[in-house]
């Protein structure tokens, strides 16, 4: 079966349509992961053992099981208890929460990476815990986290094809639909590969820039 350029141009608009949804899902998912991840990280530091343990276990569970299965659950099982989400919303929540368990680890590492001496200096300067967080710890913890967070957002982008399992018409699903109705897999699948590779190559460059920009400041 040979490569057919005419076919490529013919399917391009449809693929771009799907690509838009892929990007949208990634951005929304990243936002969810960033916010929920911080919440998880803080909850895990909670002095109340019941809270930190439960959150810990739930995170472990989410991280240890496949996103695909979780998506099926959110989309097909949750309606039984009255929660009916649109495919895109279900997908964004699924992928966002799944990746929140990863970003939570990044937040945690970032916070723990601030040298203990900084906490102590804040103490010695008689700052309150809240003031220490806002003025001393977070400003130092956040910038070094940015590259690691970005890394997960790229990984997330690459997992958006899973959303086709819950009928989101993203890039992969569009490609499959094209393939199915034309009985040609080579062009759509290769193009999807090219799209992904292009985005990741660009993001690798972006990531390098971020890493340089937010390289650890040292004392």
């Amino acid at each position, binding site marked *: *079966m040979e490569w057919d350029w005419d076919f490529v141009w013919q399917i391009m608009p449809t693929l771009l349509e799907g690509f838009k949804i892929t990007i949208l899902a990634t951005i929304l998912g990243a936002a969810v992961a960033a916010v929920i991840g911080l919440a998880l990280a803080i909850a895990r530091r909670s002095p109340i053992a019941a809270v930190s343990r439960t959150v810990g276990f739930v995170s*472990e*569970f989410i*991280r*240890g*099981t*496949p*996103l*695909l*299965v*979780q998506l*099926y*659950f959110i989309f*097909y*099982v949750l309606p*039984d208890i009255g929660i009916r989400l649109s495919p895109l919303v279900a997908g964004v929540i699924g992928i966002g929460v799944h990746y929140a368990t990863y970003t939570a680890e990044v937040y945690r590492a970032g916070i723990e990476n601030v040298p203990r001496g900084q906490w102590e200096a804040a103490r010695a300067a008689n700052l309150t815990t809240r003031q220490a967080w806002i003025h001393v710890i977070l400003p130092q913890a956040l910038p070094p986290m940015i590259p690691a967070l970005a890394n997960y957002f790229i990984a997330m982008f*690459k*997992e*958006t*094809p*899973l959303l086709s*399992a819950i009928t989101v018409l993203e890039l*992969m699903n569009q490609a499959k639909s094209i393939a199915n109705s034309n009985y040609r*897999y*080579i062009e759509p*699948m*290769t193009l*999807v*590969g090219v799209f*992904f*590779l292009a985005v*990741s*190559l660009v993001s*690798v460059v972006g990531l390098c820039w971020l890493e340089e920009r937010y390289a650890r400041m040292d004392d």
Partner: protein
Amino acid sequence: MIDWSGYLSLILEGALVTLQLTIMGSALALVMAFLAGLGRLSRFFVVRALATTYIEFFRGTSIFVQLFWVYFVLPFAGLTLTPLQAGVLALGLNVGAYGAEVVRGAVKAIGREQGEACIALNLSRYQRLRHVILPQALPLMLPTFCNNAIELLKGTAVVSLISLTDLTFQAQVVRAQTGNTLVPFTTILILYFVMAWAISTAMRWLERRMTRSLDGVRT
């Protein structure tokens, strides 16, 4: 009346396939990780370029696209793999690319100082790697390798999309045959989690064994 015990044993058969995929995929990934990871540190430009291309390509495109490619496009190039082989190949190469960065990072983390001590003792490049760098780098790699193995385990769910009768796929079959969604999906969520838990327990044990002698090393 639905014959649940029969269908559950179907799911367990799927678990066996998942296990197989995970183990064989991890083995391939491990080999690739060391080949490409050390390749990137090579003196020779060609080796470095090859390793870099492999790593960037497989990290850049989505596991999905790789899977579809291996399964649907490779046959046109005359290479027809069984679904199991296709799954192992795609998963192993994909996770191997991530593992390669871990290997490289760990080897670099062992640091210039140890390398310089080796030069001062006149060890050859190979001797440095074999006797000094790798024995110290290995324990550093383990935690991330553990994460990678769990990622691979979760990745096996994706192979259900190329009709490999793994855990997720069997759950789909059981669902179609019985009309029940909750039971098969809950079952496989638990099974996945148990497997992930087993992986991390085993890795922790290994890590403890390997680092016992390195306790309290100051750097």
